[in-house]
């Protein structure tokens, strides 16, 4: 950074940065920083004029004008961009229905209550049973006509429906598994056993998505959740101290199911590119724009 007369901003943009800026080659996040700084710093605007030819300068002003025009991203979107997520991906993620404070807060509350129950009954079973269902629910609620208000617009956009689904699924999984991981850290007494939810979570989520392609957005996750609960109920009836799905063999089966479901999901990916007629609201539906 240059060190003379910084016009109250506390700093000056580097000459090399200004040249790169004028050529349109400066990359984010440095680009945003210089954009913002140029608004406040007259000496840097003069330095920009000296550092470049007039055509490049025009382009620079045009870009600055565009930056002034574009509204600032929301808190979540800005946070993603600070973490290195590309701005267009950050915008797609900001539109994901469940990546909201309300959903994440609800998940956190459920996990907190479950962790408390583990300390009360001295068994991690409830936590291990519940934790795999949370990512499944999150992913199920992140895409589709029921919860995504822009579903129909997104469906007919050139961006493949499966790609949008995967972008959102990865984001929801990262958030959901992260919260589950935090809850596991609160159960240090159980060692690695406290992580036995992870493979079932991946298996249930992948199976739920694969079945969604055939059974729809509501039936598929409901069926998978029901099957998981039935499996645990049957396992509990065996009387083993550690329920079979959380043993080594059970974890191996979960991993296998996750892989098979992921392969099946990939094969069915084109089904996410269009909708079945009944899944969309009918043209008899009452119109509301309010």
């Amino acid at each position, binding site marked *: 950074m240059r060190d003379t007369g910084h016009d109250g901003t506390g700093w000056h943009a580097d000459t090399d940065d200004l040249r790169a800026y004028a050529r*349109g080659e400066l990359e984010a996040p440095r680009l945003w920083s210089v954009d913002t700084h140029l608004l406040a710093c007259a000496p840097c605007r003069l330095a920009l004029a000296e550092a470049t030819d007039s055509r490049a300068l025009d382009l620079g002003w*045009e*870009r600055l004008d*565009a930056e002034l*025009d*574009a*509204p600032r*991203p*929301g808190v979540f979107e800005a946070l993603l961009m600070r973490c290195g997520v590309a*701005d*267009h991906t950050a*915008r*797609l993620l*900001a*539109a994901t229905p469940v990546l909201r404070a309300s959903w994440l807060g609800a998940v956190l509350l459920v996990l907190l209550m479950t962790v408390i129950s583990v300390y009360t009954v001295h068994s991690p079973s409830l936590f291990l049973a519940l934790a795999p269902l949370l990512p499944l629910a999150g992913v199920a609620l992140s895409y589709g006509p029921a919860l*995504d*208000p*822009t*579903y*129909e*617009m*997104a*469906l*007919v*956009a*050139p*961006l*493949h429906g499966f790609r*949008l689904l995967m972008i959102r699924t990865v984001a929801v999984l990262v958030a959901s598994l992260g919260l589950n991981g935090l809850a596991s850290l609160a159960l240090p007494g159980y060692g690695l056993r406290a992580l036995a939810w992870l493979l079932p979570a991946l298996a249930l989520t992948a199976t739920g998505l694969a079945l969604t392609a055939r059974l729809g957005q509501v039936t598929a996750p409901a069926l998978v959740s029901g099957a998981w609960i039935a499996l645990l109920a049957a396992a509990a009836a065996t009387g083993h101290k550690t329920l079979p799905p959380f043993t080594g063999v059970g974890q191996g089966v979960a991993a296998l199911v996750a892989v098979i479901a992921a392969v099946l999901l990939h094969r069915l990916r*084109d089904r996410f*590119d*269009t*909708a*079945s*007629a*009944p899944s*969309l*609201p*009918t*043209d*008899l*539906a009452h*119109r*509301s*724009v*309010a």
Partner: protein
Amino acid sequence: MTTRPTVSGSGLTVRYGGSPALDNVSVRLQEGVTGLLGPNGAGKTTLLRVLATAVPPDRGAFTVLGHDPGTGAGRQEVRRRLGYLPQNPGFHPDFTAFAFVDYVAILKEFADRSARHREVRRVLDAVNLSEVRGKRIKRLSGGMRQRVALAAALLGDPGLLLLDEPTVGLDPEQRMQFREVIAEAGRHRTVLLSTHQTEDVAMLCQRVIVMAQGHVRFEGTPAELTARAAGRVWSSTERDPQARAGWRTGLGTFRNVGDPPQGADLLEPTLEDGYLLALDAQSVEAMSA
């Protein structure tokens, strides 16, 4: 000279369970605004969804700008040239108008930020929303929201614009503003405008398609649709039971549409009369119920 149609399809059939929402429909669209008229449940939305590639037809085939949406690659090409305003365009209410259109631009593969923002500003200008681009969508009026959705549909200068009842729920002034934008949008591209308001068709459309119960009942110009009612609209002091439709006018007399009795006092037909005659009796009854 005949120009190549933007949309050409035949035998289009979509079933909801057992009953057809679209039954063996053929459609051919060229540059200009075509109105799609019909009562609720006529199949207008289903036809638009099929043409927008949202719902594949159970039977039949069509092309858009020479591309076949029945294949993955063809569907992708159609979507790149398509603007679609659904019947109930949803919004992320916390997004600003700019951010929302920007979001749709990302879905439409505008990856470069500067180029994308330029395009977003262009379409917001085209629908006269530049002044409110920084406002959150939840703070905009219904008419403004509709224009935000239209701006999103105009991204990328699409060759085919499909608009599903865009003027419903708007007040007369908003409707007029919206019509101006649609008329401008239809100057150099093909627009299919679904509506159940004959005024929209009379003011905007070069051609009109009338649908009822999943079938196309009429296809032609608005003048041809009006002409179908010539000699079939008459005035009487009581509602004529033989009329397909009849209603009391502001003058206190009844305007009847159908097959007039001998010596009836014939009236000048309107587009709405032609529309009512293009529908089957069951659809007219359902409309007046």
